[in-house]
């Protein structure tokens, strides 16, 4: 039990492969968010579905943020790690915010722009790894 507690209190090193996997998953979420925002902008989604869908996406990303917060980067990947953490955090909060504004088309358009920027940043970090 003691060993378990000690190992839980120390952040584990996240490998490049694991970080890459988180980045790929986050890039996938940006593509999904862009597609979903278009669908909502075209008036084809119900409000409950849109709010729920963005809420679930944000929740998944928050889990990744939690995982990153409990880890430390492998040597040489410090910058990529810091960038990833920031971008995934930004994406999660963007999606969390939009889940409350699914009927506001201006907010959706602005969010889409921001998410596209986050996607580019994530892709850049992923290539640099």
């Amino acid at each position: 039990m003691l060993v378990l507690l000690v190992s839980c209190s120390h952040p584990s090193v996240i490998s490049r492969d694991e970080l890459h996997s988180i980045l790929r998953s986050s890039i996938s979420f940006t593509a999904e968010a862009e597609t979903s925002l278009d669908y909502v902008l075209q008036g084809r989604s119900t409000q409950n579905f849109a709010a729920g869908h963005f809420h679930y996406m944000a929740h998944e990303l928050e889990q990744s943020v939690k995982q990153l917060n409990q880890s430390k980067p492998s040597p040489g990947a410090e910058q990529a790690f810091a960038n990833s953490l920031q971008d995934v955090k930004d994406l999660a909060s963007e999606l969390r915010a939009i889940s409350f504004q699914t009927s506001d088309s201006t907010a959706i358009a602005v969010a889409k722009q921001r998410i596209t920027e986050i996607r580019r940043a994530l892709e850049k970090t992923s290539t640099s790894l």
Partner: protein
Amino acid sequence: MKKYLGITLGIMTALGGFLDLGQIVFTAQAGAYFSYQLLWAIVLGTAAIILYMEMCGRIAVVAHEPVFSVVRTCLGFRLGLFVLIASNLLNLITCAAELGGLAIVLHLLTGWPEKFLILISALTLGAMVQLLRFQWIERVFGLSGLLMIVFAVSALILHPDWKRLGSGLLPHFAFSSHKDGLLYAYFAVGIFSAMLMVYEVHFYSSGAIEEDWTPKDLKENFMVAALGSILGSLLTVALMAVAASVLFPRGIFPKLLSTTVLAGAFPFGKGGLIIALLGSLACVAGAAVETNLSGAYNFCQFFNLPWGKNRPINEVPTYTASWVGMLLLACVIALTGISPLDLVNVSIIFGMVIMPLTYYPILRAASDKNIMGKHVNSRFLTITGAAFLIVITVAAIAAIPLMIVTHWGKP
């Protein structure tokens, strides 16, 4: 008319296995990552489940032996008890996951809080199981599950690449990386496994006895097993096709039920989206009822206790207590907040491990002339069944190592 409605047993059984919460997301993930390259796994799984569903239905009709009674006779008490415990643990986990899945779909429809919706779902399903006769349970869930046809319509509207779809009927062996090769194997095992989930044969054989089938109905048994499974399989292919058309080109790897529903409703507006949600709701609810009742059937059949959905409660007290208890326990698990998709991933992969111990007794009983008389398996059926059993065993051995090396199928 009654004969035609008998097919709903096959439809509900197949949809509950092929299109439950886990399989909806799992198939979409396979389509989103490998496009149509895993189509062959659906075809192989469909052929295997038709063969074994027909066999267990035939055993139930001819020998009046449901699957778990066959398992106990063939494997003996100790090993049989192990299979019973493992099967019912999987039924419990799957039922809990499906309750969580119901709450997700209902949340997407209503916006109400999920925990409240888990309670509502469990109460509604409990009331339906209690109040409806078996035939009506299969009709309600089998027919409402057909709303998933919206995925097939969507797949056609999106103009699937027929050439790539055709080439997916054969396994693929060239991959860009070793990791992709392992992922491909993981998804192949997962898809095959989900199509053969053991609760399908438990439910189907018990259903044949609940419906009082006689040897005169053996032709119908084959039709019900084949048509129900083919329909379920076509809808699974549609799900993969929708993912290949909508998610694959955009680089989206679905991790949520809502992503799959959105892909299914992609060419449509609000109406299509609501139908896709209701179809998913029906399939997930059907799977919850199927696993819930299977747990009670298994327990009573193993210990030779009276069972039957259509019998009065005072004649089948253990059976009633079993399904009620299991539903309550599943509800408690779902309320703990464990992700339903994590739960169902566990059930798919660990379900694979106990499959050989369920399908071997079925094959042995169906090939035994002393049990089956003139309705014994033909040589062709026995050889084909044995070949599938070898595939099932290989997949069972590979399931857990593949799960570990791919980190549960993470790309």
